[in-house]
């Protein structure tokens, strides 16, 4: 740990939920040192704009407007946090440096990787022309237009790769579209299908047990072990690796996701780009742990959170929200030269999110590494809770108020 009066630099890569909250919590914990000039906390973000991605689904489903989902990152950050806008092209951990596309080189003592994940629809031929999704505002608006034009037929909703952002989203979309089509008197003219790559509707068994009867009640046929292999635009069918074919008039697919390219290019992550991360300390590992359980070395000054990690958790803002205090606690302790507080410095795998089931009702998923969720019976309160959470997000989560 650097000592002896030298400025300690904390670099946070990414101005999403995880990066912004970590920066603000560090500004609070290290206020005096920052004011004295001993510590500098800097967020590096590609656009300088904070985007509330969970809202994209509501552009397609609930009349949400894109303008309401974007705010200047500067306005969400504590005034003690510096913001650099630029695209990160390389993380050179041996030199403790980050390089930006414009040639800027930023040095760090501690680095937090909060760069999120990215969608890769281009990995499935004809995805762009044939399939709709709701993972960008543009795609969500296009889906809204397709739904407005829809007058009945075969509607196929599926998941074209795992892991993906916001695991409940495709199920929520299926349930919300069912409600909408009923209200528009089109449901009896629509044949609805839902495809899951695994052996049940949802990854977590207890949630799948809650959701499966909802699919049945709504008359949505669930196809399990359906791994999207090909889209045939001529015949309008989507074909699975398992050999099943589903014809569609309207196709909605969660696109495949990968980790950030910069992590692969920098040699920190391999394969799909997820960072090997310690499940409790959130330190980045030099490699995945060995098969016999032997731990690979952790990088003591490098942390990851949110979608960027390889942890077996939801890729969701909620995960980053509960990871950020752990990262902030650990880095603040390292800066002060003390041990992190035992409880606050260890992540338990906590995630909490709302789950819409249509008809103005929702439930709540709350879980950690050792406790699977037991969703309460869906009701109107959780639905209103989700709406209220989305509306008040700007004043709560990034600022560390909840």
């Amino acid at each position, binding site marked *: 740990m650097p000592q002896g009066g030298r400025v300690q630099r904390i670099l946070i890569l990414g101005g999403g939920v995880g990066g912004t909250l970590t920066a603000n919590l560090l500004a609070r914990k290290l206020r005096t040192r920052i004011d004295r000039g001993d510590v500098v906390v800097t967020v590096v973000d590609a656009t300088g704009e904070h985007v509330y991605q969970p809202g994209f689904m509501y552009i397609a489903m609930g009349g949400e407007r894109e303008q309401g989902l974007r705010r200047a990152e500067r306005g969400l950050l504590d005034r003690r946090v510096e913001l650099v806008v630029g695209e990160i092209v390389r993380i050179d951990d041996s030199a403790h440096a980050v390089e930006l596309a414009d040639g800027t080189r930023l040095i760090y003592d501690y680095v937090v990787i909060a760069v999120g994940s990215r969608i890769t629809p281009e990995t499935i031929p004809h995805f762009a022309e044939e399939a709709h999704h709701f993972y960008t505002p543009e795609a969500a608006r296009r889906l809204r237009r397709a739904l407005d034009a829809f007058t009945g037929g075969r509607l196929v909703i599926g998941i074209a790769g*795992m892991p993906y952002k916001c695991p409940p989203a495709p199920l929520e979309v299926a349930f919300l579209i069912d409600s909408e089509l009923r209200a528009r008197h089109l449901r009896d003219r629509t044949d609805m299908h839902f495809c899951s*790559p*695994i*052996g049940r509707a949802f*990854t977590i*068994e207890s949630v799948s047990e809650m959701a499966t009867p909802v699919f049945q009640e709504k008359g949505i046929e669930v196809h*399990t*072990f359906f*791994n999207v292999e090909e889209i045939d635009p001529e015949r309008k069918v989507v074909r699975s*690796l*398992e*050999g099943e074919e589903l014809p569609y008039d309207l196709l909605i697919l969660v696109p495949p996701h990968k980790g950030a390219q910069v992590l692969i290019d920098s040699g920190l992550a391999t394969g799909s780009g997820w960072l090997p991360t310690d499940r409790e300390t959130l330190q980045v590992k030099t490699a*995945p*742990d060995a*098969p016999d359980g032997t731990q690979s070395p952790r990088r003591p000054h490098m942390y990851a959170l949110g979608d960027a990690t390889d942890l*077996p958790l939801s890729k969701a803002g909620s995960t980053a929200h509960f990871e950020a205090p752990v990262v902030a606690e650990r880095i603040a302790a390292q800066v002060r030269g003390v041990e992190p507080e035992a409880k606050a410095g260890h992540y338990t795998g906590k995630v909490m999110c709302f789950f819409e089931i249509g008809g103005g009702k929702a439930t709540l998923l709350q879980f950690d590494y050792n406790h699977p969720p037991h969703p309460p019976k869906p009701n109107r309160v959780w639905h209103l809770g989700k709406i209220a959470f989305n509306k008040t997000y700007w004043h709560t989560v990034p600022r560390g108020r909840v």
Partner: protein
Amino acid sequence: MTETTTVSRTIDARGSFCPGPLMELIRAIREGQVGDVIAVWSADSGSKTDIPRWVEKAGHRLVGVFERVGYDEIVVEKLR
């Protein structure tokens, strides 16, 4: 290794939780050739039911599920 079949590729998915091991197998099947025999090592108890169910649906051959110390080895032959 398994009792009678030569494994052409082994996937060690012991650090990964459901559905990770199944997703790793699916990736290997996509990349492999017909006739390849793929062994998946999984410490997640769900895998020894999930993977055989998937293999049946996908039209491949389950060579066997072998209990090893602390994990299961599930061996699959790619048939198509």
